[in-house]
């Protein structure tokens, strides 16, 4: 019984929340669009939380994801906006022109493609930097990524010269977040069907990928070993440093993908607002999902449940009309209760 709680505790917490909503809110909460919205809004957090789960299982933590997000999104949008404006004669311009004329891609498409690459690869690269500073400087991850939290956003500010960067792409770039798969039998207000937006699809793919890495690959075993007992992992012939690099880099990749979704959704980047508190949300989701902060233990799918729990709480607070001032209080309490439930501390 206790074992079940420990394994499926987060699921139990989720079910309790859903039942509460069913009892008091019914259609309002359970409308397909509301559900879709909750999932969509939380998919960037979800994507980041997948990577965060692996980092935490590996005994680390990353506070820099929110700032990293704004930095790589800024880089991506700068690249996008640059694509149309390249100086003729430069290599970049030539490549773009070739793509344009040979493959019939519009400049907007090429720009979007380049922005996507820059954002995602930038994330992976910054993640790798985090990992390398942690291993070669032998500094606590908390501090290294705290420095990242402070620095990365500052670089974004400098690049954007404060404020905001707007995408020069009118329609293509925002398709990344606003396109998707229609759900049959539904209809949105504007006459079409409700879409499952791409970020949801991407999140699901990332959860499956993350779970696969964790449970089905050598790397996953080694990651758990590093997180549970670094010395034992070393004695078992595991290249602990490389495992860490790969993990932080994977989280960076996730962050890059999430940044792309966000930038596309807003079709702009707000250097002061994007990704703010993302690290706290992602970590909270991981822990509510039952992954231990001590490392060596956890699951990716249950992090997804943690993300949903957090999302549903926010949604509920609005639906139930909780005073905005007290919302934080209620949210804090629910997080604690969710963690308690998933610990099976029902004695």
């Amino acid at each position: 019984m206790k074992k079940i709680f420990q394994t499926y505790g987060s699921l139990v917490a989720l079910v309790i929340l859903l039942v509460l909503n069913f009892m008091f809110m019914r259609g309002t909460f359970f409308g397909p669009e509301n559900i879709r919205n909750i999932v969509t809004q939380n998919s960037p957090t979800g994507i980041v939380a997948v990577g965060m789960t692996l980092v935490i299982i590996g005994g680390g933590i990353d506070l820099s994801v929110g700032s990293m997000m704004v930095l790589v999104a800024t880089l991506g949008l700068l690249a996008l906006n640059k694509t149309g404006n390249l100086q003729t004669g430069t290599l970049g311009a030539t490549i773009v022109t070739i793509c344009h004329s040979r493959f019939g891609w519009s400049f907007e498409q090429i720009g979007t493609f380049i922005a996507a690459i820059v954002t995602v690869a930038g994330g992976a690269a910054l993640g790798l930097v985090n990992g390398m500073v942690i291993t070669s400087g032998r500094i606590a991850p908390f501090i290294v990524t705290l420095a990242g939290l402070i620095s990365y956003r500052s670089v974004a500010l400098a690049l954007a010269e404060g404020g905001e960067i707007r995408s020069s792409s009118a329609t293509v770039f925002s398709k990344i977040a606003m396109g998707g798969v229609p759900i049959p039998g539904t209809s949105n207000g504007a006459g079409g069907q409700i879409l499952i937006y791409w970020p949801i699809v991407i999140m699901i793919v990332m959860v499956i990928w993350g779970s696969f890495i964790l449970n089905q690959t050598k790397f996953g075993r080694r990651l758990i070993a590093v997180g549970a007992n670094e010395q034992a992992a070393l004695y078992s012939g595991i290249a602990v440093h490389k495992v860490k690099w790969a993990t932080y880099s994977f989280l960076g990749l996730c962050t890059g993908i999430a940044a792309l979704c966000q930038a596309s959704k807003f079709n702009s980047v707000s250097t002061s607002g994007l990704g703010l508190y993302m690290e706290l949300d992602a970590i909270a989701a991981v822990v509510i999902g039952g992954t231990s902060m001590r490392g060596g233990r956890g699951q990716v799918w249950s992090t997804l449940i943690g993300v949903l729990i957090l999302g549903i709480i926010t949604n509920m607070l609005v639906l139930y009309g909780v005073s905005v001032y007290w919302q934080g209080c209620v949210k804090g309490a629910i997080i604690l209760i969710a963690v308690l439930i998933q610990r099976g501390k029902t004695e």
Partner: protein
Amino acid sequence: MLKIQGLTKRFGATLALSALDLEMEEGEVVGVIGENGAGKSTMMKLLSGVHQPTEGSFSWMEKTVHYKNPAEAMNEGIMMVHQELNLIPTLSAEDNLFLGREQTTFGRLDRKSMSAKAEALLQKVGAQFSPKTLCEDLSIAEQQLVEIARALLFDAKLVIFDEPTAVLSQVETDRLLDLIRELRDQNVSVLYVSHRLTEVLQLCSRIVVLRDGVKVGDFTPEGHTEADLAALMVGRDLKDIFPPKPTVQDQVVFQVSGLESGKWAKDVNLSVRKGEILGLAGLIGAGRTESSEAIVALRPRDPSTRLWMNDTPVDPKNYQQAIKQGLSYITEDRKGKGLVTSMSVEDNIHLASMDRTYPGKTKREVTTDWINKLGVKVADPSLPMTSLSGGNQQKVSIAKWLATEPQLLILDEPTRGVDVGAKAEIYRLIADLAAEGLACIVISSEIPELLGMCHRVAVMREGRIMGELTGDELSEVNVMKLAAGVTA
């Protein structure tokens, strides 16, 4: 096969290993013995790539090698079972076996094939548990079996065992020795480190003795006795290992009746008199540790349990209360639970008795008194625990509990991982304490030491006391019979 030349290792100011030369043939089993801190583990860690030599080198399979990490040594067939357990608690036994050498098909773990191999191998080392059990749910001994199996998993050419039997009981030890002989017959070389000299004499074709990092002996076991080896290790003659047993007084200091704690203690009844040393024997997993922890309230016990100290009923609700009532328990897990290794010797000695005051004495004077009384070898009491050898660390844990002025002292595996010289000192110490009127319960998996030291031995099995032996009944055979549940 293996040729070591001038191998030297320094840790800061300590010279852990000094200009060691050694050659080893295929299929040879070499025993390495020495006092705590003699440099045995250091030597093995150099060979297996954990540490890198300060000077000197060694060649393996006719070529000089410099391993930068354990992975490189493993790839060339050198496997090591470490003195400390190195398993991942959150992974299953089989996952631990294959850790670092997982089998995959198309990038995916090949669980079926790994499971099958793991099952076979664990059976071979005598494991009774499922390979799917998480290591955190295994007892220390069971974990050690996993460690051993891991070294056998791949075709190693050299297997290093660093005190593999310290936590094993007789049955498991015998099985391990057989396994090692099997390896030898398959032309695998084995380096075997142990403080149990009998085993070394039985098993090894050559014995190397280290003292203070220097090789002081290298010979075949023929014509040598345990006493010789001990003398060589320690550098002086060890006369009687066991001191004479002190006289028991009439006063019953401690009594427990009907101790119940989960499935690990069932209707346990014990009593100890003033000056008496009671032995607690049993196979691994018999529940001796759990019973003791339940007595001192480190673990919940059934309310029906009744305890008396000096004929007064007591019912400690937590460890702090138990300590005030004169109970004390020295854990078997010295590193994990017994000592705060990053703190100083002095702090550790006072850790359990900080509320005591010593009128007219400074803290340091009290510390020095304990260090002298127990013969702890340490230059300066403000050095951290990590700078002490295993035997000396154990003495510090005993000092820590004596400082609480207990009336009953429970010692769980007090000589685990301790060299013969230090063992003799600990035996003497326990006898002295009993002579001063302390009641002692000693838990040990080494039956000879219980026989040599205790007035009485109670034998546990599956959480129950199977019987008590005194006087002439005290023999290895009788203990084993009770422990194994043979009633005839």
